[in-house]
Structures are given as structure tokens and as C-alpha cells.
């Protein structure tokens, strides 16, 4: 149900993943994940190596942070993130590129894994693995299935339904074997018989390649080509497409026996478990219609966006209107390009002036396109009217909190109403009302 077909614009598909050079200075944010920030465990002047633990997860919902470079800790401070929010951070002056001895840097692929479920989860925690699909949910919490619940399906999200983004596409072409080993390890940790890899039909190359590699895993890994429709990669929609199950309102995937991970995460899992390498690098797409060149990079997490732009394209085109972290449907527009990348960063998307400015809003003509586009079967037009009139509880009664913020409503609105802005406002107000009622 619902969904839209935005222009795919996957123009960086053929750009092979390049190693991004290590910059002269690194800023490592302490909260790169969903939950509480990690606590710095190094002091000013300390020498650190690549892969050394520098931020420790002390809260429950938290993830370890490792140094992506070697050098001297210059400062422990707070810096502005790409969206202008102050975040605790460790600044490191880079000296050489000296890695921790525990990390296996050989190019060989290590296939055997003898760890049991508990050991895998402990390792995920130690290596600071978080979900790389966008939500950056700490992996060791996701894979520790709570008492009384049972995992039946492991689903790997390789849909990449967002326009422009190609990092998952590239990683599947270039690291299929590592990914499949990573998936098999997670499958074993969950103790489920099969893992399903969902890929949209518009990526025939990765589908064919992954099918070929997955075939070596004795039928445990199944590649599922999926219909092309945004948001096919949204968690609830993906689970529904693969298992036919529906995650009810307010419930989690595990409530219907599913665990979903992004394909990029599984590559990080392989490196963490088999190579002892913490999550210090990720794959980032640099793309935009007006850019002189398109890139996919393996970047040390903590490289600033301005460094990435400078190295890849020199400077932003004069007609740049917007720079987005993530895809054009759900990504966030950045206001501070001097900020460092974080674990969940998947792209630098440069949008031209013409597309960057919203068209003038006009009256709702009640065409119902927002409703037809909504993958959750909600009524965005109604939320818009209710929120504008401060009727938040009524919006709540119409299930505003079920909204997954995919943006299909605003995308398809002929009157250019900022439907998702209003829904976000309504959701925040509704959450505040619910929290106040609980007290």
C-alpha cells in the first residue's frame, strides 16, 4: 500500500569505492548512535592508535567509540555537529597511521567463526557496532533478543530505496563475500535457520552477484528481489514484503519475530568479528546532479564534510542550494559542513538551487494524493489541519505517532503543503502530552 516513485538518480553507481585519505585532524563525536553519549576515557595529550577505545559505553543504550586515527589527543570538548547542535567530542592531531596490533589488516577473507551467540553480542558491543541504515541503533542491544521473545527471521536491508545513494550497491558488488559471512554470523547469533536479503529490483547487478555468493552458504542466505517502490526499505514495509507479517502500531520488529539490519552494518559486523576491527570506517556516497564527479568512499569516521568535499570535488558548485546527509527523501539538510561525519553517515548529497527551495504553498485541494502515498495508511491532510489548529490529541487519536516520516505525503502534495513538517510537530507535541499523562 502507498508509496511513491521518485526519480532514482543513482548517478554514482559506477564509482568504485576509494580509500579516503586520512586528514590532518580528526574530531570524533561521542554520540554517534541512538542513546546516551559515550564517556571519554582518554585525556588531553594521550597518544592513541587506530582502533583504540576512546569513548566507553556506560549507559545501557550506548555504543563504544574508537579512535579512527593514530596521534595525540588535542582536546576533549564540545563541537557543533552538521545540524548545528553541540555534541561532546574528542579532537585528535593525526600522527602517522599506527593501528592496534589486535586488528587483522591482511586482505584475506576469514570464513570460520566459532563464537557462540553471547560471544558475538559481546564482540559487537566491544567493537561499537551500530545500525548503519540511519537510526544507528546499537547492534548489541538489537541482537540480544529479550526474554520471552523469539527471533524467527533475520532480514538484511539492502533495498537502498532512497534516490541518489549507492553505498550499499557498491559494497554489495565489492564485498559480497564479507557481507555474506557477516550475515551468516548474525544468523547464527540469533539461531534462526535463514537470513533474507531484500534488494530492490532496480539493482540487477547486486542481486545477481549476491545470489551467486549467497549460494555458497548452503541455502541459509536467501536473496529476495523486491518491487521498486519508495519506501520499500522502511523497516515495517520490508518486513511485510519479505515475511507477510505486519508490525503492529507501537510494536517492534522482534514482536513479530523479526530482526532487521542494514547491509552496510553486516560488512562492519564481518570486520568486527573476523578481523577485530572496530567501527571506525564507513562507506559514503558523494553525489549530486551538478557535481563534476561522483564518488563512493571508505572514510574514517570523524573526517569533516568540508575535507570530503575539498578532496572529492574541490569546492561546491556555485549554484549549490542544499547539502544533505543521507538521501533526498529522509536525509537531513546540513548547516555546518565543518562538522565531522558519524557512524550513520551515508552520503554527501549536493542539491542545486532550483530544487533546494520549496515551491509556494497553496490551499489543500483535498485530492487525497497524500493519503494514497502514505505507506502507513494515515491521513496526512488531516494531521496538517489538526496540527495547525493545535488539536494535537485528535491527531494522536488518528494515529499520528504511526507516521514513519518517509516523506511520501509532502513529496506528492500538489499544493506543496509542508505536511511532514506539521506531522513532526504534531508527533512531538503528542509525545509530550503522553509523557505528561504518565506522570
Amino acid at each position, binding site marked *: 500500500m502507498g508509496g511513491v516513485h521518485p526519480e532514482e538518480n543513482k548517478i554514482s553507481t559506477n564509482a568504485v569505492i576509494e580509500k579516503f585519505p586520512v586528514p590532518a585532524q580528526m574530531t570524533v563525536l561521542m554520540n554517534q548512535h541512538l542513546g546516551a553519549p559515550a564517556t571519554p576515557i582518554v585525556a588531553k595529550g594521550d597518544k592513541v592508535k587506530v582502533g583504540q577505545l576512546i569513548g566507553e559505553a556506560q549507559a545501557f543504550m550506548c555504543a563504544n567509540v574508537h579512535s579512527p586515527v593514530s596521534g595525540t589527543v588535542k582536546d576533549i570538548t564540545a563541537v557543533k555537529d552538521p545540524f548545528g547542535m553541540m555534541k561532546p567530542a574528542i579532537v585528535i592531531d593525526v600522527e602517522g597511521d599506527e593501528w592496534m596490533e589486535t586488528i587483522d589488516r591482511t586482505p584475506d577473507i576469514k570464513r570460520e567463526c566459532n563464537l557462540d551467540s553471547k560471544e558475538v553480542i559481546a564482540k559487537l558491543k566491544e567493537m561499537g557496532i551500530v545500525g548503519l541504515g540511519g537510526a544507528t541503533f546499537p547492534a548489541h542491544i538489537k541482537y540480544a533478543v529479550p526474554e520471552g521473545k523469539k527471533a524467527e527471521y533475520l532480514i538484511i536491508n539492502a533495498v537502498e530505496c532512497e534516490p541518489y545513494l549507492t553505498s550499499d550497491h557498491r559494497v554489495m558488488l565489492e564485498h559480497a563475500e564479507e557481507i555474506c559471512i557477516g550475515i551468516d554470523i548474525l544468523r547464527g547469533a540469533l539461531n534462526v535457520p535463514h537470513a533474507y536479503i531484500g534488494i530492490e529490483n532496480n539493482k540487477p547487478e547486486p542481486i545477481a552477484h549476491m545470489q551467486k555468493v549467497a549460494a555458497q552458504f548452503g541455502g541459509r542466505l536467501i536473496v529476495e528481489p523486491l518491487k521498486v517502490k519508495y519506501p520499500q526499505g522502511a523497516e515495517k514495509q520490508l518486513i511485510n514484503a519479505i515475511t507477510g507479517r505486519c508490525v503492529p502500531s507501537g510494536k517492534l520488529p522482534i514482536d513479530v519475530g523479526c530482526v532487521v539490519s542494514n547491509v552496510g552494518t553486516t560488512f562492519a559486523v564481518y570486520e568486527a568479528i573476523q578481523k577485530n576491527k572496530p567501527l571506525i570506517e564507513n562507506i559514503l556516497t558523494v553525489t549530486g546532479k551538478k557535481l563534476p564527479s561522483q564518488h563512493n568512499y571508505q572514510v574514517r569516521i570523524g573526517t569533516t564534510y568540508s575535507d570530503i568535499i575539498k578532496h572529492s570535488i574541490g569546492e561546491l558548485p556555485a549554484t549549490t542550494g542544499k547539502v544533505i546527509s543521507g538521501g533526498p527523501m529522509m536525509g537531513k539538510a546540513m548547516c555546518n559542513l565543518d562538522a565531522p561525519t558519524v557512524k550513520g553517515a551515508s552520503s554527501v548529497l549536493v542539491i542545486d538551487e532550483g530544487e533546494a527551495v520549496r515551491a509556494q504553498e*497553496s490551499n489543500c485541494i483535498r485530492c487525497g494524493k497524500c493519503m494514497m502515498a502514505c505507506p502507513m495508511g494515515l491521513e496526512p491532510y488531516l494531521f496538517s489541519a489538526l496540527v495547525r489548529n493545535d488539536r494535537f490529541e485528535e491527531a494522536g487519536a488518528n494515529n499520528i505517532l504511526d507516521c514513519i516520516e518517509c516523506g511520501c505525503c509532502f513529496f506528492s502534495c500538489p499544493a506543496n503543503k509542508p505536511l511532514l513538517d506539521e506531522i513532526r510537530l504534531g508527533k512531538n507535541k503528542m509525545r509530550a502530552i503522553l509523557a505528561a499523562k504518565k506522570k
Partner: protein
Amino acid sequence: MKLLNVSGSPHVHSDESTKKIMWRVNLALVPALLVAIAYFGLNALLVSIVSVAACVLFQWLIEKFIMKQPTTNIWDGSAVITGLLLAFNVPATCEMVWIVAIGALVAIGIGKMSFGGLGKNPFNPALVGRVFMLISFPVQMTTWPVPAAKAFSFSADAVTGATPLGILKEGGAEALPQAWELIVGHMGGSMGEVSALAILIGAIYLLIRKVITWHIPVAFIGTAFLMSLICGACGMAPEGVNAGYYAVQQILMGGIMLGACFMATDMVTSPMSKSGQLIFGVGCGLLTIIIRNWGSYPEGVSFAILLMNAVTPLINRGFKPKRFAK
């Protein structure tokens, strides 16, 4: 340094606009307009031009001097739709030229702008204008020129005759149009409603361009057909006409085709959800046949749609789209 734009997602748009939707509807009305001109001559063209011009002019005047702010782009085509539909709902006689201008003022002024302009009106503006004219100018509004009697002339004394629905209401069967005349619309009636074929061509275009969905037209026409079939079987058909043919006559004569395809489907005044649209269509069909058979007017499409417009907010409340995982 140039500042970057920052806004919430999504950052791309489908390129769909109100203006595009409205002009598509106008384009879909062109076949029926051409048929009207072919059958009723230049009178039809003149009435259409006056009606459209008056609607656009009144909207512009009201925005400029009363509301003191534009509600929509005047060229977004919505006033043109109202103008065309208003013209389609009147007989193509030359005295309609000035009456339709008054109708346009009521349609745009009361039907649309008094509620705040496009998107805010609870009732279909063209039907508000039409019903006003029907009640205020009953004689002129029911003097029907006979097709092609005086094609391509501005003659004041064009041959007039009753509409087939009027004949049916009086119980006469012999003067009714032939089957082929029903399909191509060679019969008396409002200028835009006569040709089912021309209307269907426009409706199919709108379906393909996804401006409308099938729910309202199918529910409307289907209900009217079924109910006429029942009425026909219960002896309400004129002598010598079987129930099936009577039901076909009922949906092809009068305004059901035009109403079901172009007026009941007006997105502003019809329900949002598919289930709601089905209810709306069924309601329109039932009310139309009830008014035709038991009301004092021979035709009931306008009243039926306006009545269903009135309950649309209620339908929207009761008939929600199917939610995920429900």
C-alpha cells in the same frame, strides 16, 4: 560565503501541482465542449466563453477588492473548470448568455470565494450556480434547443423541444431518442451533458492521468443503473420499453454521465478515502433516481451531488483509509 538552505525532509518533490491537475480537467472537458458546439452551434461556444470569462473575472475581482489577497493563482485553471461546467449545465440558447454570467457570480462568489477560495468550498461551485439559475430562471433553464436544428447560427429562435427525461416523466415513449442518439448524444439537454461518448473520452483521460479514480463514477452510474433496473421491472418504464433498456436510457439521458465523471469527482467536495468515495457514489446514484422518479424535477443529478457534498465531512470521519497492520 553563500548560505545553504536548511529544511526538513523530503528534499525533492514529485513536480505535481494544483495547476497541472486543474488544466488536465479542462483538457478532459474539451471533447464534450466540441460536441456541444457541433450540436448546438455557436450559441454553445458563446455561452461557454461568457461563462468561463465571467468566472475568472469574478474570482479576480473578489480576490482583489474583497479578500485583498490572492487565494490561488488566477491562472491555475480552477475558475475555468467552474466556468466550463457551469456552461455545460445550461441549455445552449442565446438568452443564457447573460443568465450564465449571473450564475457565474453565484458559483464563484457564493459557491467558492465566500468559503475562502479553492479547496475550502464544501459544495461544488458549478452546481451551486446551476441550482441558483434553475430556481431563479425556471423557464429559460428548461427551454432546450434541439441539436443541430440551427447549427452554426446565433438565431434567437432556435427550435426548442423537451429533454428526453422530460418526455419520460410525462410518460411518452415514442418521441424518445434512438439508441445511437443516446450514445453520441444527439438529443435535447444541457449542452455538455448530452454526449456520453465525449464525456467518457474525457473521463478515461482523467483516469489515466490519475486525476480521478474509478470509485465515484462507477458507484454513481452503477447504482443509478441498478435502481432504474428495479424501477423498470416494477413497472415504471414506459410501455413497450423493457427494464434493461429503460435503465440504459436513464443513465445516458440527462446529467448522470457528466455528473458522475466530472462533478461528483470534484476532489475538493468529495470524500478522501476509497471506501468513502464508493459510499458517496452510491448516495449520488440513489438520490438522483429518487428525485427523477418521485421528485418534482425531471432531473436530480445536481441536487443529488450537492446533498452528498453536504455529508462528505461526515463520510470522511467514518470512512478512513485502511491502516498498516489493521
